[in-house]
C-alpha cells in the first residue's frame, strides 16, 4: 500500500515516525501516520472515482535566482546545471507517480522570478493545490520577499484550498551554523504563512526527493478527499431527488439478468 511503484519513493505521511535530518517538527503543518481512512479504503477498493487521472497543480514562486528551476530539474530530471538561465514566462513539468496503487500526476508550474514576467506568471497561479514559495538560504532578503510572493499567489486562489510550502534552497552554500540561524527565521515565517518548511539543496540533491514526495502525498490525499466528497454528494442527491431513477438502474440490471436467463433457456 505504501509503495510508489513507479519511482519507489516513499510516501512521506508517516513523518512523525521519522527522525531524519529533513524533518523539522516546528515547521510541519500536519502530523499523521497514514492517509485519511476514507482515502485508504477507497484506494484499497479501487473505488477512486470514475474521472480519469488525478492531477494536482503545483505552483513554484520566489525571487529570481533562488533556484526554483534547479529545484524542479533536480527532482524531475535528476540534473543540475551550474549555468544560470533565467526562466522565461513559465516552465512546466509533469511528474508521474503511483500512490497506493492509484496513478497520480503532479503538474509543476515553474514561474519566472523576474519582475517583468510577474504579469504573465501571476496568470498561472489560479487553481493551485500546492504553492511552493522558494528562497535562497544564502540571501536572507529573498526570505523577506516570500510573503509578498505568497500573497500574490493566494489572491488567485480560494482561501484554504492550497497547501503552502516554504523552501530554503542552496543548503550546500551555507555553513551548518548559518543554516540553522536562517532556519529559525524561516520557521517563524512558515508559521505565519501556515506553511511547512524545508531546507534543500538542488546541487547535492539533499532533501529534494523527500520534499516532493511529501508534496505529492499531501496533495494526493487532498485530491482524493475532494473527489470522494464530490461523489458522496452526488450519491446523496440522487438518493433524495431521483428515487425512481435509481430503480430504473436496478430495473436495467434486472432486465439484463432476465435476458441472460432467456439466452440460457
Amino acid at each position: 500500500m505504501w509503495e510508489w511503484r513507479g519511482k519507489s519513493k516513499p510516501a512521506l505521511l508517516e513523518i512523525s515516525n521519522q527522525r531524519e535530518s529533513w524533518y523539522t517538527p516546528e515547521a510541519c503543518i500536519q502530523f499523521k501516520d497514514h492517509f485519511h481512512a476514507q482515502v485508504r479504503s477507497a484506494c484499497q477498493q479501487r473505488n477512486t472515482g470514475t474521472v480519469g487521472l488525478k492531477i494536482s497543480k503545483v505552483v513554484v514562486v520566489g525571487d529570481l535566482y533562488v533556484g526554483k528551476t534547479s529545484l524542479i530539474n533536480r527532482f524531475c530530471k535528476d540534473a543540475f546545471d551550474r549555468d544560470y538561465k533565467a526562466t522565461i514566462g513559465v516552465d512546466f513539468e509533469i511528474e508521474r507517480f503511483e500512490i497506493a496503487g492509484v496513478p497520480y500526476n503532479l503538474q509543476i508550474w515553474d514561474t519566472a522570478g523576474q519582475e517583468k514576467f510577474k504579469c504573465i506568471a501571476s496568470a498561472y497561479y489560479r487553481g493551485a493545490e500546492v504553492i511552493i514559495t522558494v528562497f535562497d538560504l544564502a540571501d536572507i532578503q529573498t526570505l523577506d520577499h516570500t510573503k509578498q510572493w505568497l500573497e500574490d499567489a493566494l489572491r488567485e486562489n480560494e482561501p484554504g484550498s492550497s497547501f503552502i510550502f516554504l523552501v530554503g534552497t542552496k543548503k550546500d552554500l551555507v555553513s551548518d551554523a548559518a543554516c540553522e540561524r536562517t532556519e529559525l527565521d524561516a520557521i517563524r515565517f512558515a508559521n505565519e504563512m501556515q506553511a511547512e518548511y524545508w531546507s534543500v539543496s538542488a546541487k547535492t540533491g539533499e532533501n529534494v526527493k523527500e520534499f516532493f514526495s511529501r508534496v505529492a502525498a499531501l496533495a494526493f490525499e487532498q485530491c482524493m478527499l475532494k473527489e470522494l466528497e464530490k461523489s458522496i454528494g452526488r450519491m446523496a442527491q440522487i438518493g433524495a431527488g431521483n428515487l425512481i431513477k435509481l430503480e430504473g438502474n436496478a430495473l436495467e440490471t434486472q432486465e439484463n439478468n432476465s435476458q441472460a436467463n432467456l439466452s440460457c433457456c
Partner: protein
Amino acid sequence: MAVAGSGLRGPPGGEGGGGSSLTMERIRSLTDLPELEAAYSRLCGEEKVVQEELEALLEQQNTIESKMVTLHRLGPNLQLIEGDARQLAGMITFTCNLAENVSSKVRQLDLAKNRLYQAIQRADDILDLKFCMDGVQTALKKEDYEQAAAHIHRYLSLDKSVIELSRQGKEGSIIDANLKLLQEAEQRLKTIVTEKFNAATKEGDLPQVERFFKIFPLLGLHEEGLSKFSEYLCKQVANKAEENLLLVMETDMSDRRAAVIFADTLTLLFEGIARIVETHQPIVETYYGPGKLYTLIKHLQVECDQQVEKVVDKFIQQRDYHRQFQHVQNSMVRSSAADKIEPRELDPILTEVTLMNARSELYLRFIKRRIISDFEVGDSMASEEIKQAHRKSLDKLLNNCLLSRTMQELIGYYITMEEYFMWETVNKAVAMDTCEKGQLISSMVDDVFYIVKKCIGRALSSSSIDCLCAMINHSTTLLESDFREVLCTKLKLGFPATTFQDIQRGVTSAVNIMHSSLQQGKLDTKGIESTDEAKQSFLVTLNNVEVCSENIMTLKKTLENDCAKLLSQGFGGEQAEAKIESCLADMAAVSNKFRDLLQEGLSELNSTAVKPQVKPWINLFLSVSHNIEEEEFNDYEANDPWVQQFIVNLEQQMAEFKAGLSPVIYDSLSSLLTSLIAIELEKVVLKSTFSRLGGLQFDKELRSLIAYLTTVTTWTIRDKFARLSQMATILNLERVTEILDYWGPNSGPLTWRLTPAEARQVLALRIDFRSEDIKRLRL
C-alpha cells in the same frame, strides 16, 4: 611370509593406507599373546584383500595383452607418419622463409615509395613556396588580390615543418629571404585588403565589399572578415531602419496602416535582416565554411536589437504605452467609474502589441532554424559536447537578445491590459444585459463569449504560448468566478412561487388581470409585473447557464484547433502542448461547474414552482372515491372527476416553461416533473380504497395520464410509471389468486418492480379482497 612382508612394508609413499597398518617393528615388539593374535588376524584379513586385488588384476591381463598386440601392429604406421610430418614441417619452414624474404622487400619498397612521396611533396612544397613568392609579388603588382590571397593561402596551408626543413638545406639563406618576403607580402596583403574593404564599405560598393570579404578567409582572417562584413551589413540595416522610422513619424494618422505602423516597421526591419541573411548565407557558407552563420547573425543581432529598441521606444512614446499601463493598473484598483480608462481605447494598442510580438517570434524562429541547420552541416562530425555548446550559445543568443527581452516586457504589460480590457468589457456586457422577447437567452451570454473569444484570439495572434495560456487562465477565472457569480446571484433570487389561485386561473387569466390592472393604473401592476419579470429572468438565466456551459466546450474545441495549427508551425517550446492542454482542461472544468449550477437551478425550480402546485392537484385524487359501483363508473365516464382537469392544469403550467426554457432544460424539467408525479401519485393511491370498478377507473386514469406525459416528454417515461402501472394491474384483478398468473415463474417478460410485501399492500386496497386470501398467497 614374503607376501606378508611386502604387505607389512606398505607401498612407498603411502601411509599404510593400501598396505598393512602394522610395521615390522611393531610386530617384533609384540610380546603379549592376545595382541599377537589380534595382529595375526589383522594381517590375515589384509592378505585376503591383497589376494582379491591380485585376482582382479590378473583378470585384466587378457584385455591388456590384446591391447598390446594392437599397439605393436600400429608401430610401423606411426613411423611412416612421423616421416611425413617431418617433411611437412620442413616445407612450411621453407615457405615461411620465402614469404618473409618477399614481404621484407615489399616493406622496403613501400618505405621507399613513402619517402619518395614525401620527397616529391616537399619538393612540390618548396616549388610552391617559390611559386607563391613569385606569384604574390606579381599578383600584388597587378593588383590581382584574389591571386595573391590564393598564394598566401597556399603558403599558410603548407606544413610548417617543411619550411623549417627547407631552411636547413643548402639553400637555406635564399629560402629564408624568400620567406621573409612572403611574410611581408602577407602583411601587406592583409593591410591592403582591410583598407580596400573599408573603402568599399564606405562607398557602399557591394561587389567590392563582397570581393574582399571572400579574400579574408584565404588569409586566415575568418573572424575579422565576418565581423567587418557584418559591420557593413549592420550599417545597411541601420540606414534602412532609420529611413523607415522617419517614414513612421511622417505617417498620417488617417493612413490605413496607422494603427499598426510600429508593427509594420518592425516587420520591415526583420524582413530586411532576413533578406540579408538569405542573400549572404551562400557566400559565407562557400568561402567561410558551414557553422559560421551563427557569428554573422550574432553581429547582425546587435544591430537588430539597437533598431528594435529605437522602434519600441518610439512606440512606447507615441502610443503612451507605459502611461496607459499605469492607468490600467490604477483603474483595476480603483472602482470609481470616472477615473477608469475606457477599454475600447485600449483595443488598437493591444492589437498592435500582439502583432509586434508575432513578428518578433516569426523572425526569431527564422533565425533559429537557419542557425540550427547551418550548425548541423558544420557539426555532422563534431562531438556531442561541441553540439551541446553550440545549442547553448544559440539559446543564449535567442533568449538574451534585447529583442526578446523587450518583447517580453511589452507582453507582460499587454497581459495586464488585455485582462483589464476583458473584465471591463464583460462587466459592461453584463450591465447592458437585455433579453428580447421571444429569445431564450439574454444578450450578455453571446456578448461575454464574443469578448472572451476575442481576447484569447488576440493573445493567440501574438504567437506566444505563455501569453496565450495566461489569457486562457484569466478567461477561465473570469468565467468561473465572476461571470458564474452573476448568473448564480440571479438564480438565487429564485423563481417566485405563485399562489394556488393564480395557477387555478391559469396563465391566460393572469395576463387578463395584468391588462385590466394596466388600465387601472401602474401601481397595481407592479406586483404582477415584477413577479412575471422575475420568473422570466429566472428562466432566461437557466437558459443562459446551459448555453454558457456549451459555449465553453465549443470555445475549448476551437482553441484546441487553433493551438494545434500554431504548434504545427513550430512555435512554442517542448512543453508548449502540455501547457496549453492543461490550461484548456481547466477551462473545460468550468463548463461542468455551469452544468452543476444548472442542476441546482432546476431543482430549485422544481421544488419552489412545480412541486407546491402539482402536489395539491394530485391530492385531489383522494377526494374522488374509487370505491364505486356501475352507476358511478358510468357517471365518471361522462364527467371525468380528476384526471382531465389534472392534465389541463399540468399543460397550462408546463406551457409557461416550455415557452421560456431551452428544449434541453425543458426536457430535464419534465423529467423531474414526471418523477415527481409518479412518486406523489403512488402515495395517494396507497391512501385510497378501490372496488373492482374503481380499479378499472384508476387504470383508465393512469393510462390517459401516461399518454399525455408521453406526448410532452422526449424521454421514455414508462420506466418511471412502471410501479404505478403494476399497481393498476393488481387493482384490476378479478380474484386474489389471479395475481399468481403474473407472478414469479409466470411473469414472462414482465419484471415486477413491487416487492411481495408491496404487492400484498396493494391487493389490500381492494375492499372486495379478503385479507385471509391475501395472507394465504405465496409470493
